[in-house]
């Protein structure tokens, strides 16, 4: 990343934020209240004091060998009811193949299957 | 102060000097196997008219002529014994520390049958023509068919958390089986189906610690003309009518050694090794010898005009029957005597802890 590195320096995985799976997003329906959204997606790690009508779910994983994956999901509310969401790099429905996800990368921290 | 000298009142009393008034004549003495072993067992010989049958804890059983001390036959049972040798009708009965009762043919010691019970058999199994009764360490009285060894019935009397080592042997009669348990209760059962005829509390647990609440009936009850004499540890000495179970008399006396009845007199060794004689009818004390306290005396036996007890150093003390004074003293063996003594009124048989067995007779000086 920043400067020219020694060959093969072992770096640790740095994982930040929420794991957001396709199944979670599938459960979101407009009209839910905040408590229900919080139950499905979990407590947002970034709870910005400035305004409360949007919740930001951020997820990133930088693996030791330099690969970087980022996913964001922002959920919008009108008052207490959930209206819609938008996000970046959201998970598509995983194909129901039987063998393990092809890159079967089993790092210490979870990598959504389609990274 | 008391910190350094060891005479702090808990060690056995020294032997008392006295002028012997009788001679102790030793008929014969022989070794009979390795004796009691490390399980603090109290294996005792069984006696019939002319033979006695003795076994050591490793299962070496031998039949010895009572007069000559010669071995008629012996047999290695090849099992660790915990209780025995009991007398059935035509059978010898022993109990193993793995909980098995063995019935052996009285003529040659060959095994008739063997049955596994629920725990260690620390008391001598007893039987008659129809049944054999055994009291195991877990407080269960099991009654088996004398011929096949099959368990007919059993009665559980769970012992308190802390008990004395060993259990009391039951008394088997055609009409009832009497058994003293380590929770201080004496019970009578119908031999055929185990129905409880009556039940009598011999010792009441008192105090707060496990030690104070120990109330074992350790000695087997003595049945004489319809009256059962039974003693309890930290309990009472009682005479109970065998039929109704009604107590005739009872006095406070704590004992764990076998008691001996002879001509209307009851001889008993109390838990502090005092030797006491009571009148069998009313329970009044006749005399008490407290010169051998804490010597871990065995139960007394009567032979003619004298009483015999043995202690943990192997000394055999002969007392005068009427006043308990010392008459004579000899020593069988340094390993001490734990097995109850036996007398046929004339000869006294003593089995030492390391297996030495001797027969003595008291002759006037």
């Amino acid at each position, binding site marked *: 990343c920043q400067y020219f590195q*020694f060959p*093969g*320096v*072992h*770096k*640790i995985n*740095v*994982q*930040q*934020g*929420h*794991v957001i799976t396709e199944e979670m997003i599938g459960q979101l329906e407009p009209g839910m209240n905040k408590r229900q959204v919080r139950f499905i997606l*979990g*407590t947002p*790690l970034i709870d910005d004091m400035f305004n409360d009508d949007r919740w930001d779910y951020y997820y990133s994983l930088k693996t030791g060998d330099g690969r970087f994956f980022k996913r964001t999901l922002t959920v919008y509310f009108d008052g207490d009811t959930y209206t819609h969401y938008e996000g970046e790099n959201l998970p598509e429905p995983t194909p129901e193949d039987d063998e*393990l996800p092809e890159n079967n990368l089993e790092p*210490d*921290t*979870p990598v959504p299957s389609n990274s | 102060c*008391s*910190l350094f000298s060891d005479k*702090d009142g*808990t060690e056995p009393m020294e032997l008392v000097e006295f002028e012997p008034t009788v001679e102790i004549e030793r008929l014969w003495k022989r070794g009979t196997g390795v004796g009691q072993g*490390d*399980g*603090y067992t109290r294996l005792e010989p069984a006696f019939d008219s002319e033979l006695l049958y003795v076994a050591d804890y490793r299962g070496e059983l031998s039949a010895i002529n009572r007069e000559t001390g010669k071995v008629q036959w012996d047999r290695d049972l090849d099992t660790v014994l915990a209780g025995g040798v009991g007398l059935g009708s035509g059978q010898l009965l022993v109990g193993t*520390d*793995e*909980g098995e009762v063995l019935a052996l043919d009285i003529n040659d010691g060959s095994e008739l049958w063997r049955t596994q019970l*629920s*725990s*260690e058999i620390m008391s001598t199994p007893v039987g008659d023509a129809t049944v054999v009764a055994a009291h195991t*360490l*877990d*407080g269960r009285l099991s009654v088996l068919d004398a011929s096949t060894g099959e368990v007919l019935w059993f009665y559980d009397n*769970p*012992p308190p*958390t*802390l*008990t*004395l*080592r*060993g259990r009391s042997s039951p008394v088997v009669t055609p009409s009832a089986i009497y058994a003293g348990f380590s929770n201080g209760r004496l019970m009578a059962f119908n031999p055929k189906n185990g129905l409880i005829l009556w039940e009598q509390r011999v010792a009441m647990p008192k105090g*707060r*610690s*496990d*030690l104070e609440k*120990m109330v074992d009936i350790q000695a087997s009850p003595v049945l004489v003309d319809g009256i059962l004499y039974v003693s309890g540890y930290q309990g009472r000495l009682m005479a109970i009518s065998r039929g109704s179970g009604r107590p005739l008399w009872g006095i406070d006396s704590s004992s*764990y050694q076998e008691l001996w009845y002879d001509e209307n007199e009851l001889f008993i060794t109390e*838990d502090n090794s005092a030797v006491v004689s009571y009148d069998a009818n009313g329970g009044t004390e006749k005399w008490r010898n407290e010169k051998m306290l*804490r010597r*871990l005396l065995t139960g007394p036996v009567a032979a003619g005009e004298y009483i015999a007890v043995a202690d943990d150093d192997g000394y055999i003390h002969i007392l005068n029957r009427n006043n308990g004074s010392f008459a004579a003293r000899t020593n069988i063996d340094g390993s001490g005597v734990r097995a109850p003594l036996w007398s046929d009124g004339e000869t006294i048989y003593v089995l030492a802890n390391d297996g030495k067995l001797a027969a003595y007779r008291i002759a006037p000086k």
Partner: protein
Amino acid sequence: QTFRVNDIRVEGLQRVSAGTVFSAIPIRVGDTLSNLDVQRATRELFKVGLFTDVSIGRDGDVLVIMVEERPAINEIAIEGNKVIKTEQLMESLTENGLSEGQIYQSATLNMISQALEREYIGQGRYGASVDLEVEDLPRNQVKVLVEIDEGETARIRKINIVGNEAFANDELLDLFELQTTGLFSWITGDDKYNREKLTGDIERVESYYLDRGYLAFNLDSTQVSLSPDKSKVFITLNVTEGDVYTVSDVDLAGDPAIDERFIRRMILMREGQTFSQALMTTSSEYITNRLGNEGYTFAEVEGIPERNDEDKTVKVTFFIDPKKRAYVRRINFRGNTTTQDEVLRREMRQMEGGAASTAQIEHSKVRLERLGFFKEVTVDTVEVPGVADQVDVDFTVEEQPSGSMGLQLGYAEYSGLIISGNIQQNNWFGTGKQVGISASHSNYQTAYNFRYNDPYFTVDGVSRGFNIFYQSSDYARANVSGYSTDVFGGNVSFGYPISDVERLSFDIGFRNLEVKPTSYSVREIINTPLYSSSASYITQSELLEIQEKISSGEDSPFVPYDPTPVPSLQDDVDGVRGQPGFLDVHGREFHDFVANAGWAKSTLNRGVLATRGASQRLGIETALPGGDLEYYKVTYDAQMFQPLTRHLTLRLRTSLGWADSYGKTEELPFFEHYYAGGFGSVRGFERNSLGPRGTYAESSFAPYTAWDDVNGDGVIDNSELASAYYVLCEDPDMGGYNPARQTCRPGELMTNSGGQVTDQSRSFGGNLLVETSAEIIFPLPFIEDQRSFQTAFFIDAGNVFDTNCGATQVNCFDFALDRMSIAAGLGLTWISAFGPMTFSVSEAIQKNELDDEKGFNFSMGQTF
């Protein structure tokens, strides 16, 4: 008659609070009282038991209660207690409300004796007895004197298990903590009956059976019985074993949360296998950990066996409840009052704001322990109150001295007065940086050294360090053959992790080395004897002729022998002067660029005094071409810990070294030789004393080769003799010299040998080092703080070899097993505030003739 109470007054109270009196009497202000009420009140007050006398009277409409308090216990003195400490007895007394300052009531006496007796019976001392005396003191106080006779502890004489066919009694008894009286019972006290220990033993038997498929195992009853004299205890366990159950089917229930295949892989039980409770619980643990790694920190997994008694099979179902996936809100550290927060946080593998992973949290804890800065590291994961899926991870550490600091003022026979100070800190003021400053001066060595290393120069653990040193030492005094060196130099070092447990390290530096031989330096260093340029020599046979003439009294022949001049070392073509020394060939000043490369792998569980895991290190040191010297040294060190039992650990250690020269350096410089012996190498032998010896320095041999009968008496006496020439040896048996004092090597000039080869001070080292050591580490019985102590029985074997021994070297062999020096003994290491101290006592088992044993070794500051 009756009267109305307006107020109540109590007199005579000293220790009892007024509240107790008011709560005892049923009278309140405002009641109207009759005599009957007054009597009842008096009786109530007496019942409280705190007063010796109570009288109630009237003063106008005020009810006056006069009381006389019972005496208070001023002091409880306990004597005769050895096994149970007085504090513990006092504690059990206070629990029963009997302590100094309490009111002395009639029941107090037997309550005290009962409480104390119960303490003793709880410890199996049935024979204990307590008697009490009460002594009156002024001012209404009493003193209670307690006389305790602890009696004998009941010792377990026999433990019998009835009903066990599958496993023999002694196989089961091995599981027991309680044992029958054995050899070591007087120390361990394992033959003292204790109820808690018995319950523990019973549980161990039960799980022993459950682990082997005996699902229907049942402990029917336990009897504890006592011999009449209360000195022996007998324990009988009655069990029914039941049958062995085999696993018929394994499946999952509940929400596996991650792909079922990952979970299946964690289950150790297979169909057809005998059921084992241990396997079931371990499988549940593996699944819980696996879920933990995925962030389900609070997952609960439980294996439920369902017995089918007909066919003796069992269906095992694992119920999985993953609960919410948890995220780490904050990681907190407690106890690091000196160490900086970043030094701990950089070891963390778990990130704040990331999914909580049990494996990473546990791994972070191990990494903290590996730093060696902390005596104890504990971690617990705590739920954040009010938030379902967030946790805080709290680490608590206990710091320990992570370096040594010392000022030594000492005297040793081989180094004279020593003044040395050193500071070696691996956690310099808590910054995690390693700093070493040392200065020492003794008559054999003056050394200054500054070492600095930052293990976390970059956040990923790339380390960078510097080291500068100056050292001048005269090795003659340190068991190494006579020469001294002056060296100074410095290097830059850096390293980085290539995996979680492996690191590469490099350093490169400049070194200026000057070797100063002495007149008695061994011949391998400089060739001796030294000849002047005008020296010349004759042959041995010519010497014999001369000696012949001298003894026959002939005049000295004027015809001179034709002696050949002694060549200088450089042009000594036919090696008349013997092997040239290293310095003769390579000169005395060496300027070199020295580079080191190293690979290290460590999975030790603790930085200091590890007890599990292994560590290896492979290092290559080379003097780079372009410097005056060209050589390389390869060293490999490894150690491994293998726990044998709960208390004993086996430690295997080895270090191997191979060095050789290359390019223009003909042989490995002697000052780069390996040495062996002493701490950190082969204990039981003098420091650096093993292995090859150098050959003694030799002086020139000039026999009498000229004579003149000055006094003309026809006899040549000593004063008339003179030596002029040196002698070339042709054949050692030709004679003409005294073999005890001179050496004659064919083709070389004869020399005066330097003395017997006994003194080991000329150990010379070699280019092949082989060392191994096996140790059994055991805990000291009486030491509580085991973490800074390590004691071990050891067997050390090793030696230094040389692949091309000099012709004249002694004790110099190529590698051979029977040449290894072996010693066995007992070693102790103590991490004190001044740094590690090590002691060892040992006996040699196999040694070479010249090895110098040293039964007792002590050293400070070195850890081996």
